[in-house]
């Protein structure tokens, strides 16, 4: 049995790279890659309500579906998310080969390799790559689609209430974590140490990525550094330290389920209010794209002109 401190340290060793790598990848992508968007449409507050409704309803669907149907559903979801992110940077055929390999390998690893700790770790590692890429793609889809920091912080705040409700009073989240464990396409970033699995959900990673890149888009680099610090403090450290202080999150199976958004959501919302007061209105996507926060491809030097020799003088007429 692990001590609470050991548990926190190991959770930190998963949550910290998960949050930092996913958010960092999303930011890297935002600065360099432009996703296609529809002719008409901007992400707005009503979309947040629709998204939130999905988030409330989807776990219930996960609980009700048989595992084979859930795997099919998750395969389609992952394939869609990955294709959104990879399409602008890869050609169609290699892209679908990569997506097929990622999803196929995940299913195969989870069905055949979980007899050993190394097998578990390999399966987690492979799944983590898919989760990271999916969160990176979807966060960019939303922010490049016009989602503002205002929306992200409101979304995180709503999730704070959702998370505490569905972790403690109606423990759907912890039930889902148990259900997914060891099945293909677990939507979590995780790792196994000995007998224990430590994870952070793809939803949490998505919110962190959204918060970081929406802040960067809205207010630039300094604000983004502040956002990254906030993610680290409230999305990683506070989540890992919470079990040391509170024991309300231990389930009947002695798993520890932390409602991460309950800690991060209010902090993100207050931070947004402060940034709005401090920096003023958010930049539009148009203003962001016109700024030097975007990395533009350096122009290739023009090929050197081929020297043209003067035509040989025509022979004098005889």
């Amino acid at each position: 049995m692990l001590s609470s401190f050991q548990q926190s340290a190991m959770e930190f060793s998963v949550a910290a790279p998960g949050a930092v790598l996913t958010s960092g990848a999303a930011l890297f992508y935002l600065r360099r890659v432009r996703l296609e968007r529809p002719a008409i449409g901007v992400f707005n507050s009503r979309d947040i309500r629709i998204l939130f409704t999905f988030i409330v309803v989807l776990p219930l669907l996960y609980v009700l579906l048989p595992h084979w149907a859930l795997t099919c559903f998750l395969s389609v979801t992952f394939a869609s998310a990955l294709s959104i992110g990879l399409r602008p940077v890869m050609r169609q055929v290699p892209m679908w080969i990569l997506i097929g390999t990622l999803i196929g390998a995940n299913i195969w690893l989870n069905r055949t390799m979980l007899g050993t700790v190394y097998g578990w770790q390999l399966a987690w590692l492979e799944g983590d790559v898919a989760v990271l890429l999916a969160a990176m793609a979807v966060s960019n889809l939303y922010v490049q689609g016009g989602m503002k920091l205002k929306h992200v912080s409101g979304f995180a705040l709503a999730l704070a209430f959702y998370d505490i409700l569905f972790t403690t009073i109606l423990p759907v989240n912890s039930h889902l974590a148990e259900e997914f464990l060891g099945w293909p396409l677990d939507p979590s970033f995780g790792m196994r140490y000995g007998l224990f699995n430590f994870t952070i959900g793809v939803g949490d990673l998505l919110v962190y990525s959204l918060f970081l890149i929406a802040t960067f888009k809205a207010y630039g680099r300094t604000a983004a550094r502040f956002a990254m610090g906030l993610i680290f403090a409230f999305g990683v450290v506070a989540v890992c330290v919470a079990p040391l202080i509170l024991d309300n999150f231990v389930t009947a199976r002695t798993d520890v389920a932390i409602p991460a958004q309950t800690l991060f959501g209010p902090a993100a919302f207050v931070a947004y209010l402060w940034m709005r007061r401090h920096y003023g209105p958010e930049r539009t996507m148009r203003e962001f794209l016109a700024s030097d926060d975007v990395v533009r491809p350096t122009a290739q030097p023009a090929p050197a002109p081929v020297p043209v020799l003067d035509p040989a003088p025509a022979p004098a007429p005889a």
Partner: protein
Amino acid sequence: MFETGIRQFRMAMGMVWGRKLDTTNLARLVEDARATLAEFGEPGSDVQQVLDGPLADPGARADFITRNLRRTARRLDAQSPFYTRRFAAAGIALDKLDVETLRTIPVTVKRDLVDRQSEFLCADSTRYLATRTTGTTGQPTEIWLSRYEIDLLSGLGALAAVLRDEVRESDIIQLNVSSRATVSVHLNAAFCRLIGCGCRVIGLVSPDEALDSLTSGGVTLLSTVPSYLGELVTAARRRGLGPNDFELRRIDGGSEVLTPALAAAARETFGVSHVNDVFSMTEVIPVTGRTCSARHLHHDINMGLVELLDLETGEPAEPGALATVVITPYYPYRECMPVFRYDTRDVVRRLPEGDLDCELAGVPATGPVLGKASQLLHLGAAQMVTPRELAEAVEALPSQPWPGRFRAQLLDGRLRLTLPESALDGLSEVGAHDHFARYGLDVDLALVPDADAVSLRPLRSDLRETTFVNAPALIGD
């Protein structure tokens, strides 16, 4: 974004199934488009698909035409007394109607609309707003539109204008058209309300009043008829006004021949880069046409069928030949008093076969409107002079006689062109003949005093409206 997707889907399904479109949904789509531009500065990359439809493929286009024709004809057969009789007389099965069998149905002409107006009203629609044509051809026609049509047409126009970045929220549109053009005025006001821009309906007042408004009110877009534009250019030059006095960025003109000389003068005087030459006609709205940089006229093929028929035979015109434009607006874009195969008698030249290379190459095109068929002058079996040729030659005279006033007649097989005296200022008789010869016109010239110029040719700018500006106060001192 999710909602916008649903709205677009609903609208697309309405178009595909031919049901009446939800105009509230359309108005919200305009709001979505405005929000898109505010956030991104431009619509997404597939905007052309939204605007012009997926009709670049000839097969898809033929299928689209057939489905729309059948749907439109079936509704008219059920609701329009005029067309119930006409289709029955043609003895055609409307479920088998296509572009080929369509020719068995006679074209509808203006006389039909004038004589039997009430028979064109559809039984299942409610009249809301009537508009009368200006009667420049001698017979005004009255067209009724329903509330649905007003909401739909202003919504579709606003959506296209926002997505093409033709009109912005910061714009103010000045409307110098006849105030009796009720549909045009009503649609423009509704269109501006949806876009959130300003709409200044001035009417055809004295050009000086219109210029005062243009120079003082932050007007950025001007919509008028070419003859009135000519009066504005002339008045502006007389007053020494130039590009720095205006904030205009575009001028839209239509319903009359816009000549290159006048368009160039308007660009130079008002400091705009482009004068849009738009084809529109009350009887066949919402089917309109846009003029590209190559001076082709591209008709909208999403909302109606445009046929080009030989002036003599009524059969499809050969490439390169003159043709009358016959238009059938599709249901559900016209509801209250629709027409089917309406012969506009506007003459165009069919373009030679081959691919277009202009910026609107995906949309079928003709040459520009050359004038009304009744105003063509036949000099011989193969020689014809069109009103456009005459207008272009007259408005290019060094005296800059805008709008061009003239009367053209055939006398003893020769073309007699009557002009106001001042039109030939600065030209000798030989110089004048040389000028017209450069435009391919061999004319006998006759002159009338300038005071009689208006009687030579009626123009829309003659529908002058009066105001009390510069008149003594009615009450008080």
